[in-house]
């Protein structure tokens, strides 16, 4: 039975993408290796470093999260403590009108899971030997276009991102694997769901050891910000302002997550994990 399942997994090969594709795209390897690097902070001129890490190729799906909740009733809607998830936790409905997690149709299982809090997302990642990505890791991967690792300054790409962010949303989210695969082989970073990061709570603290940094001033315009001088800043502001509005127990219709993991010193993806 186990052998059969691994055989079936091996048959799931990624299909070529052409920008935003319709329907389901199956992705075989769950995580992408991201080499160490640095990038210019989207909100200013700081240079930020990231160490090598791995990140899920696409957000966690309804089906995966359902399996997690089934194994750990602390994260069921009945069992969860209100301090860890608000009253909208997992409240999304399937097309049948039932709670999505319990009675999802097969195609619904491939949608990104939403209405999960930061605590819930962390618990899921931990249960799989992973963690949430940090904001710097996430931004580092997300700056890649299809062809380039660093599309900083590519105004055509940034205009596409802005368009993805502002498309009219239907209540039914598309399946994962529907928004282009970037240079690192990572899908769905722009325009599917916003994603939790591990350190969302401290992104407003600057590198200058001061509380309420310039980023904070820029997020609340009337406090005298300028600086959004091109569309790249625009899309960054949308992401950062969205993160600034979060609290850890909050859930959101357009808020999901994916997991990450620090790289082994050898950089090897292969891990034997027994729990």
């Amino acid at each position, binding site marked *: 039975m186990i052998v059969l399942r691994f055989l079936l997994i091996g048959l799931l090969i990624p299909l070529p993408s052409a920008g935003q594709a319709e329907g389901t795209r199956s992705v075989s390897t769950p995580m992408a290796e991201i080499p160490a690097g640095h990038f210019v902070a989207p909100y200013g001129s700081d240079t930020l470093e990231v160490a090598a890490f791995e990140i899920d190729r696409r957000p966690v*799906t309804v*089906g995966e999260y359902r399996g997690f909740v089934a194994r750990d009733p602390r994260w069921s809607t009945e069992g969860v403590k209100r301090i860890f998830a608000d009253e909208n936790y997992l409240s999304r409905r399937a097309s049948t009108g039932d709670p999505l997690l319990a009675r999802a149709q*097969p195609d619904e*299982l491939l949608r990104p899971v939403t209405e999960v809090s930061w605590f819930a997302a962390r618990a899921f990642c931990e249960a799989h*030997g992973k963690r949430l990505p940090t904001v710097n890791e996430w931004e580092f991967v997300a700056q890649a276009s299809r062809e380039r690792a660093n599309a900083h300054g590519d105004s055509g790409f940034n205009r596409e991102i802005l368009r993805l962010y502002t498309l009219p949303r239907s209540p039914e989210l598309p399946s994962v694997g529907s928004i282009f695969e970037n240079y690192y082989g990572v899908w769905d970073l722009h325009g599917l769901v916003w994603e939790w990061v591990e350190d969302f709570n401290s992104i407003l603290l600057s590198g200058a050891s001061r*509380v309420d940094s310039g980023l904070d001033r820029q997020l609340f315009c009337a406090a005298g910000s300028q600086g959004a001088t091109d569309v790249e800043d625009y899309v960054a502001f949308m992401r950062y302002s969205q993160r600034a509005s979060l609290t850890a127990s909050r859930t959101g219709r357009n808020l999901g997550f994916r997991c990450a993991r620090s790289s082994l010193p050898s950089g090897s993806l292969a891990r034997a*994990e027994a729990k």
Partner: protein
Amino acid sequence: MRRPAVRSATFAVQSFLVLSLGMAAPISAQNGHAAHSHDTPAGTPRVGTPSDLSVYNLEGEWLDQTGKAMPLVHLTGRVRIVSMVYTNCAFACPMLVADMKRIEASLPKKSRSEVGFVLISVDPERDTPERLLRFADSSRLDATAWTLLNGADGQILEMGALLGVKVRKMPDGEFAHSNVITILDQAGEIAHQQVGVSQDPGESLEVIRALLR
């Protein structure tokens, strides 16, 4: 109907891709988690089970300044005044502690045994229990009222997230953090927050008085 629990995390992750094609059925495994036993009627807290909105629901091991294990749930029963600081902090943390001592001094003597003060270190590497004890001594913190806690990085991240305290380690090893004093009620639920340093404790004292009635 029970099914055996899945053993391998890798297997679990990869098999969901296959299971998502409709082969799975929801597994309702009872793993006997103490907090979810159905013996007691809904709404009756079991001994040692924090209430739904209590900060003490956080998991993880904490050590106090004597090096003793201090499960958060042991803080139940007293109103707790909490802040997140570190001992190598030059400016804001001493001011926060001073603000807390101001609150302590303003409490009537008969209330002192019903109120506790908690300092959670955001710098567990340097703020070992021994260092916390020295800090408590040099800051003249009454050991019967003040608890200083050392916990792992993940726990500090979660505590900060729960209390709305922003904490970030800077490249130079210092910590940037927002300055908040939180008042937890006897169950560990957030009753009030005093934001900033050198703040007038008037509102906080009113909240504490109301909780002690």
